[in-house]
């Protein structure tokens, strides 16, 4: 019975995008369009030091000269950067909230609808959340408890004020301002995001989490996350995203930088569920994200796990630069595209240090009229003696109007390295479906079951709370794709 209710809920939820509500909150926005003045405006709003403004302006000027990246297997009309707001903040009394009590109750209700009751979470879940609403961070829970251990977890705009030495040292050190057109734009106009610093030898006692939501119309969201794990530390970080339903396309160009020093480990998990547009491809988020981690220290480890179900267009390649000897990079990905969605996603593993290891497991599922591409690079530099890579990317096609593509690049310059790549493409077998149907499982549930089995290797990597959500998402995303 309970399962039944859940199914009905799911179906209802998918008829409309579950998170497609708009929260009525007064917000303060900068004038539409992009110019040096807007960059100065944002910097001034954030009360930023001179060096950061200079850094932003330099990025902006370089951005003007950069061409749009054309190599991805996605199609969309050229972006009009002037037709968007670059700063939108929920209007608050003066200085912004100091604690949850001061946060606009309307905003809190929004998060409750999204399934992150901040208050409850503080008590029960033990997950520290930094929620980013349009352009600014609105609340960070558990801050006090984390401070006891010396962990810094705060909006990056706050870190600029309170820990300028750390920000200045690491900002842009993994993703340089001029890295690519979208990252460059982010460097110029990033508004907020999370900053995490785990001190030496500290094992972060709880999962850190950020929740992103684009609320206002015509705004782009440009958050920037900077995460530093000092020697011998460990952190697990979760990230979730949603946006309201709108007919126009909204740009989301985020940058995430991870730095792992000696013996440190970072686990970064994302469940991306931005509004994907309707079944005719109207509206939806353009998710153009640059994520990169640097294993600077020896024996360090960075692990990316992502579940990508939303966005009209996904353009995202979480990467690892394995600099330290014996460092490890991992990439686990499930990407699901339905209707008119397009995804071009994958990873880069750059092996620089000795005995570095990397593992890539990518599962792509395309349904409807969607197009999905895995694009990955494994590069073994001449000094990466004993480097090891294994890549497995499997694609599942549902229906004959979608496409699944695999474009791995393998560049090997060391004979002591072992690089392996395997990929398969298939569809759900009739036998599997028949077996389930025979046992009274509906066609759609059977598909969800098979797909969940197909993705299991990756979903297992997610922290508990996310794993459950992700499994449901897999089912929901594929609704209406069979029969």
């Amino acid at each position: 019975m309970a399962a039944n209710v859940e199914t009905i809920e799911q179906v209802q939820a998918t008829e409309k995008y579950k998170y497609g509500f708009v929260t009525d909150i007064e917000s303060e926005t900068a004038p539409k369009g992009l110019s040096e003045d807007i960059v100065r405006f944002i910097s001034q709003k954030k009360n930023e030091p001179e060096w950061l403004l200079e850094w932003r302006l330099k990025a902006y000027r370089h951005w003007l000269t950069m061409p749009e990246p054309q190599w991805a297997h996605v199609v969309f009309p050229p972006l009009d950067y002037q037709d968007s707001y670059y700063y939108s903040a929920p209007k608050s009394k003066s200085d912004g909230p100091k604690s949850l009590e001061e946060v606009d109750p309307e905003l809190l209700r929004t998060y409750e609808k999204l399934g992150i009751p901040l208050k409850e979470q503080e008590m029960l879940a033990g997950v520290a959340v930094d929620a980013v609403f349009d352009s600014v961070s609105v609340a960070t829970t558990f801050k006090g408890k984390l401070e006891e251990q010396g962990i810094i977890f705060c909006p990056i705009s706050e870190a600029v004020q309170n820990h300028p030495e750390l920000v200045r040292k690491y900002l842009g050190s993994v993703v340089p301002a001029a890295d690519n057109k979208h990252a460059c734009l982010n460097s110029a106009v990033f508004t907020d995001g999370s900053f995490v610093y785990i001190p030496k030898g500290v094992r972060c006692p709880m999962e850190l989490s950020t929740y992103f939501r684009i609320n206002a119309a015509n705004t782009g969201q440009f958050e920037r996350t900077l995460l530093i794990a000092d020697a011998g530390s460990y952190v697990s970080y979760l990230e979730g995203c949603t946006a309201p339903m709108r007919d126009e396309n909204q740009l989301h160009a985020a940058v995430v930088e991870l730095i792992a020093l000696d013996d440190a480990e970072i686990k970064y998990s994302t469940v991306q569920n931005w509004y994907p547009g309707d079944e005719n491809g109207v509206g939806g988020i353009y998710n153009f994200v640059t994520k990169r981690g640097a294993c600077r220290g020896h024996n360090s480890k960075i692990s990316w796990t992502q579940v990508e179900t939303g966005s009209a267009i996904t353009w995202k390649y979480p990467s690892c630069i394995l600099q330290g000897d014996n460092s490890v990079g991992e990439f686990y990905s499930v990407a699901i595209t339905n209707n008119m969605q397009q995804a071009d996603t994958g990873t880069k593993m750059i092996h620089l240090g000795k005995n570095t290891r990397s593992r890539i497991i990518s599962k792509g599922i395309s349904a409807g009229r969607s197009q999905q591409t895995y694009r990955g690079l494994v590069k073994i530099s001449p000094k990466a003696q004993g480097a090891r890579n294994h890549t497995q990317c499997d694609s599942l096609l549902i229906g004959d109007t979608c496409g699944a593509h695999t474009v791995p690049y393998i560049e090997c310059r060391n004979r002591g390295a072992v690089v392996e790549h395997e990929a398969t493409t298939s569809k759900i077998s009739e036998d599997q479906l028949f077996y389930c149907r025979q046992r009274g499982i509906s066609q759609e549930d059977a598909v969800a079951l098979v797909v969940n089995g197909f993705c299991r290797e990756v979903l297992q990597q997610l922290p508990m709370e996310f794993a459950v959500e992700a499994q449901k998402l897999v089912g929901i995303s594929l609704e209406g794709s069979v029969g």
Partner: protein
Amino acid sequence: MSEAVAASDILETYGAGAAPPASPALPWLESLRAGARARAAAAGLPTPRQETWKYTNLRPLEKLAFGTPSPGQIGAERLPSLLPQGQSARRLVFVNGRFNAGLSACADLPEGVRAGSLAEALDGGGGFDLAGHLGRIAGGEDQAMMDLNTALMSDGFFLHVEAGVQLDQPIEAIYLGAGQAFHPRGLIIMEENSRAIVVEHHDGLGGGAYFANHGCEISIGAQAQLRHYKVQAEADDAIHLANVRVKVEAGGIYDSFVLARGARLSRNEVSVRLEAPGAECHLNGIYMLRGDQHCDNTTTVEHLAPETSSREVFKGVLDDRSRGVFQGKIVVHKDAQKSDGHQLSKVLLLSDRAEMDAKPELEIYADDVKCSHGATAGDLDPDALFYLRARGIPEASARHMLIEAFLADTINNLAAEGLCPALMASVGHWLSDAATGEAP
């Protein structure tokens, strides 16, 4: 010539100083060449900025100092051959891209087989109208080198096998180069239910650096089969580019094998269109490189119809500072249900300075398909080496045995078994060269 070659100069630079070929009697050919000339002059040489040329830079071609084009006399006994004695009776020889009747021998061809020079066929020799074939299989975008070939071609290998004719004896095509640029154009037409074996041999004549820019079009009719084997052993300072375009009809089979060990820079590009149900292709190859050699194998297989299948295995052995490139692309179009495509690239890196770049690509628009690809790169298996060493086999011999074994299974799988010993000998020859050239 150290400056980059301007796009508009490309035809003069690589036209070998001769006037552009003209065939006033054949207006269709004139218009084909004119179109290609315009495209080639507009595009210039491809650069690594283009995705399909990402790993191969043609700078060495721009800087190439050509040797002397006239090699003097060569005797038939000096011709390289892969075939066992007595089998090389059917032989077409091209010197700097031009058919050499004196060296060729093509007696007793069965009824229904035309084999010879493309120039003669264009002149009406053989009574076969080429208008419906030449330039019809090639075409499309992003084919700068094929356009250059079309613009400047005047001669090449021509084979036409009529319906139902089955040729069991191989036909050999020997290309010899010296000191200039040349653009041979091949055309092979296999009518319904015909069968043939073509063995190509590419070598230098010792006349200094040259540039061979081959273009080849192949049409395989329903149930027809072509086995197309190539040994590329060009001179050390030569540049070898080849562009093979194939279309396969229902139930037809195109079986290709390339052994590459020559040239300082080479690229073998094969593009196959499987146009009707049951069409099949096998694209295999091995390459052995040392010094500064660069070898690129680029393949595209388009599955356009249901129940088509493709198989690809490429294996490379890279020593010194050599660089190997494998770019394989399988495209399964929307209607090509129940297609089956497999692709494999394996490479042994024998030196710390060698480099391998692989891009095995799948592009799939149909759901009921089986496609897979794999790529590996690494050194010889230390366990296997230890096993042999433990049995008293010296390290050098043990390494040779393992390399030979690595390459052998590709060769042993060839359908034309008669060629295997000669190909294995070619591998052995390359390995013994390594032994003598190796620093202590």
